[in-house]
């Protein structure tokens, strides 16, 4: 079943469930990270151009990989909308990851401003993927605003602390009829695997790989873990006993029958 297992974002179909963040890398390691992770989507930031940089990150991203610009740096909906429009002007498609923060200590997203930006950008034809704090009411508002997915955080950005919001992400997976992509804070392949076992549609990771000892190997480990978790989810996890044990071997037929 995993062979034909795909998911869809704004009419585009993807078979890889790993979205790679491109921050904090040496440019020459990005290509390896993308190919070893098997990623089909990569995020990018929009910043003031500097003519002294002769290299551009676009030259290091393999052909055919979907670009997902983010609106990092935006502190409210209006700024996010400006950044999204500039990103689209660069001619790399209609995808945008909305990221709106004005808390520099924990970098937590502002769900209210994110909903406003989602509504504006979805109406302008963007495929909107909002990064959010995992709150069911906000998630429902994002659905109504026209989001193509929701991207709840596992723990604060760049923390590598794992699934601190696990129970609330599970609620979103159970209740929201859009791909739920767990973004931010995933620090290890095991955590990515766990989120996929819970039914997440995909995982986005950046810092866990960019700060690893061996970047291409860690990218590969994440790719494998995400696939393992997806297979486990599709298989249906075995049940958990409330108490006691249950032998997995036959109990009769030999010494004490």
């Amino acid at each position, binding site marked *: 079943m995993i062979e034909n297992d795909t998911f869809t974002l704004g009419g585009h179909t993807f078979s890889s469930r790993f979205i790679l*963040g*491109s*921050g*904090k*890398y040496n*440019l020459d390691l*990005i290509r390896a990270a993308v190919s070893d992770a098997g990623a089909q989507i990569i*995020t*990018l*930031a*929009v*910043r*003031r*151009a*500097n*003519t002294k940089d002769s290299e*551009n*990150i*676009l030259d290091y991203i393999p052909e055919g990989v979907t*670009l997902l*610009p*983010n609106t*990092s740096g935006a502190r409210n909906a209006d700024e996010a909308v*400006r950044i999204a*429009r*500039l*990103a689209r*002007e*660069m*001619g*790399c498609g209609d995808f945008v990851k909305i990221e709106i923060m004005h808390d520099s200590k924990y970098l937590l997203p502002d769900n209210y401003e994110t909903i406003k930006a989602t509504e504006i950008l979805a109406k302008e034809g963007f495929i909107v993927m909002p990064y959010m704090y995992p709150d069911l009411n906000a998630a429902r508002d994002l659905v109504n605003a026209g989001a193509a997915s929701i991207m709840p955080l596992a723990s604060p*950005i*760049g923390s590598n602390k794992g699934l601190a919001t696990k129970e609330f992400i599970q609620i979103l997976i159970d209740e929201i009829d859009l791909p739920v992509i767990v973004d*931010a804070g995933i620090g290890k392949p095991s955590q990515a695997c766990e989120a996929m076992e819970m039914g997440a549609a995909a995982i*986005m990771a*950046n*810092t866990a790989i960019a700060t690893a000892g061996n970047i291409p190997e860690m990218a590969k480990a994440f790719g494998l873990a995400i696939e393992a978790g997806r297979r486990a989810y599709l298989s249906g996890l075995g049940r958990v006993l409330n108490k006691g044990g249950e032998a997995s071997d036959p109990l009769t037929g030999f010494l004490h029958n």
Partner: protein
Amino acid sequence: MIQINGNEAMQADGMSIADYLLSEGYVLSHIAVERNEVIVSKKDYADTRIQDGDVIEIVQFMGGG
């Protein structure tokens, strides 16, 4: 005053966006331009003159999550 990417740039007064970008060495395929918070599309670079009071942002993609 003219501001470009946060810096004062009176030398750009009267130049077209296209001439300014080329004189500074920008690679046009990699950037987007905003003038007074409105996007200037590439086809309008040659006809848009930079004038006193303009605030211009020139952006590109960088690594980010």
